[in-house]
């Protein structure tokens, strides 16, 4: 019997300081045992519990794409005791991972459709996974236009800057990176995510939109999407909640009868509209 509570062993291969405020670091992990790597099958969307002996466990969205073989990536905002502990880790350190947990973005539904990715702040992690997956040469032809709208308060807070540059050069992805206000050295777009979404989103027919960001961004983006004609079945969100077991039984992450860790974290707006607003 597989024990769902035992972490698998990974090694930190690379630590990347993502933001100028030095609060978000990315960690690239490798699997120590080959069989763990083979078992760790996922599509973009799920999370995993990162485990540090002496500190505990906490859930983080998986930022790597399954197309990046052997690499497991997490981007982690330093905000409490546990994330502080993760930030103090170095390349070569051994840590545990329990997962993948939760569901993935409904990628099969995106096939032959336009896909719009709307994200703000450091919520971009699992959407980086999704974008990376969809634009991979093995997958790109399965989807029509791919539009990415990604915003941060200022240029220094953008994640994955090198990758954004690369994506910006491609002609098979419409990348729109925006910051909230003008900043020295920034010659890109300025404006809030909902406004930019209104400007650049394709027609809602035959399109799916995936939204992930801070609550305030989501609050103002949803009406824009509705105005553009996206029905709630084609607006997809990924939720965050305090989670522990990750397998739907420890009792803290439910919204109504659904557990964010097991039935989510990915939900359509139509599904969320059926649930009580306790999130």
């Amino acid at each position, binding site marked *: *019997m597989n024990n769902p509570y*035992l972490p698998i062993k990974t090694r930190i291969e690379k630590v990347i300081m993502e933001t100028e405020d030095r609060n978000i670091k990315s960690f690239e992990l490798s699997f120590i045992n080959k069989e763990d790597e083979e078992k760790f099958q996922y599509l973009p969307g799920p999370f995993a519990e990162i485990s540090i002996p*002496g500190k*505990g*466990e906490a859930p983080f969205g998986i930022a790597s794409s399954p197309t990046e073989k052997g690499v497991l990536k997490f981007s982690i905002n330093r905000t*409490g005791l546990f994330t502080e502990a993760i930030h103090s880790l170095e390349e070569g350190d051994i840590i545990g991972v329990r997962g993948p947990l939760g569901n993935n973005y409904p990628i099969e539904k995106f096939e032959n459709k336009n896909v719009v990715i709307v994200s703000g702040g450091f919520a971009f992690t699992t959407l980086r996974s999704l974008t990376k997956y969809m634009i991979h040469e093995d997958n790109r032809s399965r989807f029509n236009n791919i539009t990415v709208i990604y915003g941060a308060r200022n240029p220094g807070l953008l994640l994955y800057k090198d990758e954004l540059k690369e994506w910006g050069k491609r002609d098979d992805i419409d990348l729109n990176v925006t910051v909230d206000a003008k900043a020295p050295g920034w010659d890109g777009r300025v404006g809030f995510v909902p406004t930019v979404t209104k400007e650049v989103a394709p027609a809602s027919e035959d399109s799916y939109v995936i939204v992930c960001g801070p609550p305030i961004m989501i609050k103002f983006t949803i009406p824009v999407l509705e105005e553009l004609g996206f029905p709630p079945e084609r607006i997809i969100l990924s939720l965050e909640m305090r989670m*522990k077991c990750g397998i739907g*039984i420890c009792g803290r992450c439910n919204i*109504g009868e659904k557990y964010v860790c097991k039935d989510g974290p990915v939900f359509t707006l139509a599904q969320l509209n059926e649930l009580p607003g306790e*999130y």
Partner: protein
Amino acid sequence: MKEKTIKKNELANFVAGLLSDYQVFAPAKEEESLVLKEMQAEGDIDLDIGVGPVNTKKSIKEFFFPQKERFFSYDLTKPGEMEEPVLSDKKRVIFGVRPCDVNSISVFDAIFTSDQYPDPYYIKRRERTTIVAIGCNKPETTCFCVDTGGGPFSADGSDLLLVDLGDEYLVQVLTEKGETLVNGSSGFSEPKSGVLQKRDGIVEEAQKAIKSDIKIKKVKGWLDNNFDAPFWDTVHEKCIGCGTCTYLCPTCHCFDILDETKGEKGERIRIWDSCMYPQFTLHASGGNPRKSGKERMRQRVMHKFKYFVDNNEMVACTGCGRCVKYCPVNLDIREVLKQIQVS
């Protein structure tokens, strides 16, 4: 289903006979309460105590889902190494379990034996356990098992069920595990004529003694549509959030997973937690979807009588009445449910 009888004065012999092959637990008095205690030697627990009208203070859940479970231990100086505990596979009999606690096993099975994530700790403990239940001739005033789908003689979840007939017990043999116990003892006889009728009379009388009248389906129907009802604004007011109800509840199963360390040594543990505590759902960001007693009380009621029913087709309450009996502010869940059903 097979039925046997055993004379009351044979019962102690029967239980003592189990000691060679099993660990045996039975209700015993500890201070003012009954607890399930391990029998160390023949006769060291007076079995008559456990068949009286009073249930044990704590439910049997800790036999399968201990308050603290060690997943693994580690040494901080040896990164990546972890040592898993060896779980006992010694067979055990829990004697004198009441139907409400026995029925709670179906709730736990639904959670911990799912196809997707079977819980190895729970399953191992379930496998090594045989349960001898005792029906309740004289239910307590706090009992409401008949309203939650059980009853004072509901056998669902037990291996043997004993019914007190005065000078003897009628023994219902419900599973192979139960049959093994009965076959290993010479104290059992075939029921004499009239015994089953006598049992039926006792069952009927006990059921009638439970005066509670909660319509669980009606409650569910209201809960389905009233997440935002003003009812929730005040029903929690008396609650002090101590969590006693959740710890004593035979079906509550919320837990936390955390690390405990002492010097270089540490362990990852699972430990009971409670939806009645504000930290239970507190986000690292400071946000909390269940920020006040209102949301937490609503969660407890909704989970037991709506969400769990939606997901598992049974209520997560067996009507044992412990939360009624031990609540320090007398917040009576039966009263809450009755208010709901007249809403």
